[in-house]
């Protein structure tokens, strides 16, 4: 069979039939800028940043939604392409309130990146800017539609990535905006606070309430880890500043979640900072607990175990391991019971 070929900036390039231009170029590591494109979802073609010139087509075409055709001649960096993309960035910038200095998303904003890349010199805030009150009437998500560029990524994520179907475009034309079912607060909708919409919002229109003011994007380092809740084992990035987690996002290409998290995995991290944490060994004395040193507590446990083994045998001791903690902890505990105490009385709640 003849190999499928198209021409990318004059160069013969292979593709798989059915691929979009964006997919085909990404497959060979060639970069076309995008904004609204969201992997694994239906392309919306909303932002017009990924425009390219195709020989024979009158207007510029969006790479994210145009399928490659055999022999198609594509140019990605012509002056016309460059100028149109730049103009589109300018229009987006002018469409809302993009005062980066005080925006939570600064440093982690696709629009900011594009503005820099395309050398935009002036910021014009739109004249007919509508007043949108910031909505943060829920524990996790801050919505500021004055910064919304109507890229639709949040809608794609909610409907196609996590399939919670809580938000969609409401109203028409100029008034169009992202709404929950009844255009009310999130708490009165189908929303389950997975925060996926926040994760994919390329600008500062959707931000995390718990992370607000905690760290600028460039101040954090990211540590990959595994969610401590259910058995799906979602992969997380912990955004850490000064040894403290500022927020949690999903590892985009990580198995099994491929960029998704649920409400617990995304927002349930700060229990570790609770003041109620146990910080020192405790020993019961006359009905109350008193603080003790590790040596004292461990000597007491070991001594008591030895005493019980001597009088009642090892099977008078039993232990329950923890299905939340790491493998290595469970391994050590069963080893302690089998090799040191001498009993197989070790279990965990394998069944819940």
């Amino acid at each position, binding site marked *: 069979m003849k190999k499928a070929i198209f021409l990318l900036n004059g160069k013969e390039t292979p593709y798989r039939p059915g691929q979009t231009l964006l997919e085909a170029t990404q497959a060979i590591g060639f970069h076309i800028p995008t904004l609204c494109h969201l992997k694994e979802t239906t392309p919306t073609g909303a932002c017009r940043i990924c425009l390219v010139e195709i020989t024979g087509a009158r207007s510029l075409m969006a790479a994210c939604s145009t399928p490659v055709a055999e022999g198609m001649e594509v140019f990605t960096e012509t002056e016309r392409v460059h100028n149109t993309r730049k103009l589109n960035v300018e229009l987006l910038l002018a469409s809302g309130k993009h005062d980066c200095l005080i925006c939570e998303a600064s440093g982690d904003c696709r629009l900011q990146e594009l503005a820099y890349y395309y050398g935009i010199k002036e910021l014009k805030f739109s004249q007919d800017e509508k007043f949108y009150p910031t909505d943060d009437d829920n524990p996790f998500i801050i919505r500021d539609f004055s910064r919304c560029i109507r890229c639709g990524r949040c809608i794609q994520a909610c409907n196609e990535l996590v399939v919670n179907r809580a938000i969609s475009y409401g109203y028409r034309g100029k008034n169009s905006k992202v709404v929950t079912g009844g255009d009310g607060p999130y708490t009165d909708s189908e929303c389950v606070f997975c925060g996926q919409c926040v994760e994919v919002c390329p600008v500062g229109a959707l931000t995390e309430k718990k992370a607000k003011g905690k760290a600028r994007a460039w101040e954090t380092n990211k540590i990959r880890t595994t969610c401590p809740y259910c058995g799906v084992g979602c992969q997380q990035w912990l955004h850490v500043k000064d040894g403290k987690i500022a927020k949690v996002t999903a590892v985009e290409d990580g198995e099994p979640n491929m960029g998704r998290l649920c409400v617990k995995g995304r927002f349930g991290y700060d229990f570790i900072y609770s003041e109620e944490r146990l910080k020192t060994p405790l020993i019961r004395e006359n009905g109350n607990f008193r603080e003790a040193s590790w040596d004292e507590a461990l000597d007491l446990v070991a001594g008591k175990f030895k005493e019980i083994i001597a009088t009642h045998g090892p099977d008078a001791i039993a232990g329950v391991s*923890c299905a939340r903690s790491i493998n290595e902890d469970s391994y050590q505990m069963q080893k*302690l019971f089998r090799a040191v105490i001498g009993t197989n009385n070790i279990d965990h709640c394998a069944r819940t």
Partner: protein
Amino acid sequence: MTNSFADFAKAKMILVIGSNMTEAHPVAASLLKMAVIGGAGLIVVDPRRTPLVDLANLHVPIKVGSDVAFLNGVMNVLVTEDLYDKKYVESCTMGFEDLKKKVLEYPPERAAAISGVSAEMIRDVARRLAAVRPAMLMYTLGITEHICGVNNVMSCANLQMLLGNVGFECGGVNPLRGQNNVQGACDMGALPNVFPGYQRVDNPHAREKFAAAWKVEKLPEKPGIMIPQMIEGLLDGKVKAFYVFGENLANTEPDIRHVEHCLGSAEFLVCQDIFPTETTRFAHVVLPAAAWSENDGTFTSSERRVNRVRTVSAPPGGAKPNWWIFKEIAKRMGQDWETNSAQEIWDNEVSQLAPSLGGIKYFRLEKDGLQWPAPSLEHQGTSFLHKEGCFTCGLGVLAPIDWIPPAEVPDAEYPLVLSTGRRLYHYHTRTQTGRSQGLNDLLGEETADISEAEAEKYGIEHGEMIAVKSRRGRVVVKANVTEQVPEGLVWMAFHFREGCANWLTNPAYDPITQTAEYKACAVAIEKLA
């Protein structure tokens, strides 16, 4: 799980039984829902109208505890209508004649009478399943938390083997593990009958191997006792010392009043935890432990994937890694263990001793981890088990299984069934989620979920405080009138101490796994004042 989460998004036909995945395993549910909006078939078998039902082609609202009868009914149709996979059954399984004899005792009409759905619906399920291969079956605790939990699981396996669905991508029998590392704790041998890697303690070769590795003369050969027997043992004095690591038994075990009585009777109770809990109240010694993100290690997820967990910060105050605490106790009892970090423990001990983990070393876990079995360093891991129906232990066994009712069924005094589970915004007894800002705002208290029909019968308004009582206890809790729950059922969770379902649940256990029947007991509800 025999298969992987990646299969959830690609499956063509899906049967979910006893799993409220959207709340208990939300991301797994998202993947599954992607498959469904992409055109996959979905059958949801659950007494409740769970959120997944909105997307399902068919909701089969069987009665609590009737799973075996229902599944036998489906298999009856597969056999009598000649819809099962004969080639697969012949070449990959054994025991078909016995199974056939048994399921022939469950014609759809009989299965219907027991499970409360129509015979036509049972036929419909069988035909739909037979029409698409492979179909993927997922289950959670709705299957296992019954006195016949093992039988329920075997029935699911019977069905999938009869359909020829085990051993293929997007097929298989897939239990979603509740806790992040239940899979791992089992793999590590935190079970009374097996060493790490499921090597049996009553096998002399296994004992010899581990005795040599651990440098001890001998290891105990008698399998140990399980949690319910441990707790009972505190009362009758068989267990003198009880070491509880990280579990809040006082809230999670059925019949709280009795469990607390047992814990209070312990001669010596050691609790190792990150927070004071209802259980640590009874301890003689409390040992403060490092939490998630405070030490390095690994979790193993439901899809048998060993994943890395990494350190962000040191534990607060004097709290210590759990593995260190166990090592220190061993030292004080006369054994010096060499390994001195989670990585050393895994690389030098666990993966040396458990053959299926032999090829898994920390340096190979940097990105997406590895799915066991991965017996050698060259092995890339296993995304689905029993490839093409070749079962690891020979042929797949089709086992004839009879239905039995739950241990406690409704009567005149306790006319309703209580079933329990988890809700989206919290996890278990809330030791973690209750202390994570925001989650309590979304769900701040327990409710008893009841049907419109019950609400009307008892004159109960949505949101009104009611009493729910069983032979073991009584709780006062807010009524949540919802169409999720069918008539005759009360549904509660165990996240909140106040109104915790476990004041009511029945300590009746599956004889093999000692799993409690959290999913069914008899209760009465009472309108207050």
